[in-house]
């Protein structure tokens, strides 16, 4: 089953994602990580690559930018599409993300329903339309 990896420390966001993901009953699996360490450990152990990574920038421990950088210099992991999911609209954040080869930058949806819309888009686009190498 295709997998979506969410790296997000805010439990409210995590909850909204889980609730909506379940409600939408998509043919995919959502795995949530609250910090970079557990996320990177998971990636190292898991042989099969996820379809997309939704990555927050403001994380405890290893920052989102550091995670992004590590992913994109890793010959194996760099093919995985990374969507930056941040509440920041600051131009420097956006620019830096693309410089580190993020595949997309999205300002976090606000509330439950908006999160549901967002999951739908992600599923449709990154899991169905997008072709992975």
């Amino acid at each position: 089953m295709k997998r979506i990896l969410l790296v997000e420390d805010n439990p409210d966001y995590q909850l909204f994602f889980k609730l909506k993901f379940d409600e939408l009953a998509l043919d995919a699996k959502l795995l949530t990580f609250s910090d970079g360490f557990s996320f990177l450990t998971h990636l190292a152990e898991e042989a099969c690559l996820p379809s997309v990574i939704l990555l927050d920038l403001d994380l405890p421990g290893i920052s989102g930018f550091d995670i992004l950088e590590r992913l994109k210099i890793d010959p194996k992991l760099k093919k995985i599409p990374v969507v930056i999911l941040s509440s920041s609209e600051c131009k420097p954040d956006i620019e830096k993300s693309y410089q580190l080869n993020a595949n997309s930058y999205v300002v976090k949806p606000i509330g439950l329903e908006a999160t549901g819309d967002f999951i739908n888009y992600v599923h449709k686009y990154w899991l169905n339309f997008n072709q992975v190498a």
Partner: protein
Amino acid sequence: MLKNSPVQTYTPPNLSNCEKEPIHIIGHIQPHGELLAIDATNFEVLYISENLKSKYDIDFKQKISLGDLASENVIDIVKVGLRSGDFATINGTKVDFLNRQMQIIINKQANVCTLEFEPAETLLPENELHLIMGKALARIQSSGSFQDLLWQTVTEIRNITGYDRVMIYQFKQNWDGKVVAESKRADLESMMDLHFPASDIPAQARQLFKLNQVRIILDVDANNQPIYNIHENNIPLDLTHSTLRSSSPIHLEYLRNMGVQASLTISIIYKGQLWGMFTCHHYTPKYISYSFRNTCKFIGSLFSSAIEFKQDAREKELLERYYRNESDLVKNVMNGWDILRGLTQFDTKLTDINEAHGAAICFENQFYSVGISPSQTEISEIADRVRDLQADSLYITQHLPKIHPPAKSYAKKACGILMIGLSQSMNDFIIWFKPEQSQTIHWGGNPEKAHEWDGDKQRINPRKSFEKFTTLSQHTSLEWSDNEVAAALKLREDLNSILINKTNEIRALNAELKTAYEYLDTFSYTVSHDLKTPLSSIKGYAEILMRYHRHKIDDDMARSLNQIIVNTDKMKDLIQDVLNYSKIGRVEKELAYVATGNIISELVENIKIGNQDKNINFSMGALPDVQAERTMLYQVFNNLMSNAVKYSKPNVTVDVAIKGIETDHEVTYSVTDNGKGFDMKNADRVFELFKRLDDVNHIEGTGLGLAIVKRIITLHKGKIWVESLPGVGSTFYFSLPKHYYN
């Protein structure tokens, strides 16, 4: 006289050595007195004047001592003087000399002591002399103005001495002289204000006047007595301090040509320099005694200190006035931190810190002139010329036409200039002007022909004629005094330090601004992140209740939950607007010609989709392109057009008209609606941050939309304004300059 006379020979000067005429060793004395010079150690007689020598029947080839020629009392006086080293107190003492009452005057040069004998005072008793002197001094001291002082002094000297004419002759910078005060016998023609060339009193004569401050010539036609050199050793007797020394034949002829038979001159020393002289003329031979002359010398020194005092007081007062005005100017500049305004727009003018008639300032490409000044073009030509001369931030001349011939045509306005630089290259400067002083100068005889070569006598002759001769001094202004220069330099110093402070202040402001911007970055991040995250939670949980627990809550609770959700949306919009507003100032503007038409049609579509409940009719006029930052311009039109729809009247077709008008300099757009309108007294409030008009509180809005518009337009150096009529509608206008950077 003896054969092979050992008398000193005197060679009159020719043209080339005129200035060097050795008048202090002239070798003659005037015949009214007698002279002896002795060795100060052994009293051996070294020199004797012919008129004295002839009174003795002695062989002067022998060694002769003072005792052989004079009585004990003379020897005693010499001894007393030599012991005390001060002859001033004993000079003038009456002695019995060859059975005559004589006044003795002694001076000592190296080891030679010169004794001079003059007829003793017979005219006035000592106490009467003191009385006259006291009165004279009182009158001089009580004089008011400077000119009054001069006049009182010549009057008193004439009263005391009885000369036909007493004048004060003042030297100018080039040693030409001018008669500045005169008291004379009524029948004589006045010499007041007459000028005399410097060569009339040559340098070595001025030097003697400084050392020996009283000089009497008894009779220009007197039979001068040679000085007999007993040792025949070719060393002439130095007469620098002599009172009997006879004059140069040239000077005597000069006086004769003037018709003067006798003269007395008293030097006026001011601050260690020869300032001028009291010159007394008599038209018949005239003698006044040593005591009398001493009285005059005393008056002379008193006068010197009086001018020192009066001149100093006058200069001090002037300088104080200049400095006072200078500090007013500086204060005015500091008040507004504006040099041009401070120096030109207040009561204290640039011309108040000196005697200039006009001034101009050129600062940061701005120009301003005051008083009588040449045109701006003429002034910048002068400045160019001064820069060519590599003047070092200060340039002064009284003769502008000499260095800058075009100035001849406006010398009436600017003949003297004083220029100070306010920047290194003198591109910024202040310049003061003094007009040409086309002065008529009256000379005592033609100054060009002060002396004539006399072929017969192989020497120069003084001029024969002292007929008034008039010249016109051209292309010269009054001079710039030390005080005027000092005040200008003070102003330059003060302005420079203000300029430096101003630069520092701007630098500090910039640093503050940078900090403020950095703070703003943090602020907008805080807004976007820290506010939005909890907002998302609030909304999300309300939505959870509505979606997954709807069956457990009643309709009232559901309505409340819905209000929470609606209001979090409002808050989200508000946060977005605050973010947008704070971004405007910081974003690098990339100006481009924006196709306004495209933006507007895009917005028309969006607005129609978002307001499907309303019947909207957009009409467009000309939509010229403008030079702007695209996303900002988009926001301007978005806000104006959305407002036009938002504040419409209910149940009426919304008419929105958009059009642009282009002129040479700007493009003006207008957005007109047929909405609610507002009272024009609120016209300014609509653009203020977080200000919303009272009657639109029920309509959703953040109070930021028009503030954002205004900020964007201002940032583009444009203008925004509004016309409105309540119940009829509003028109918002904004104009943007066409050549933003040009």
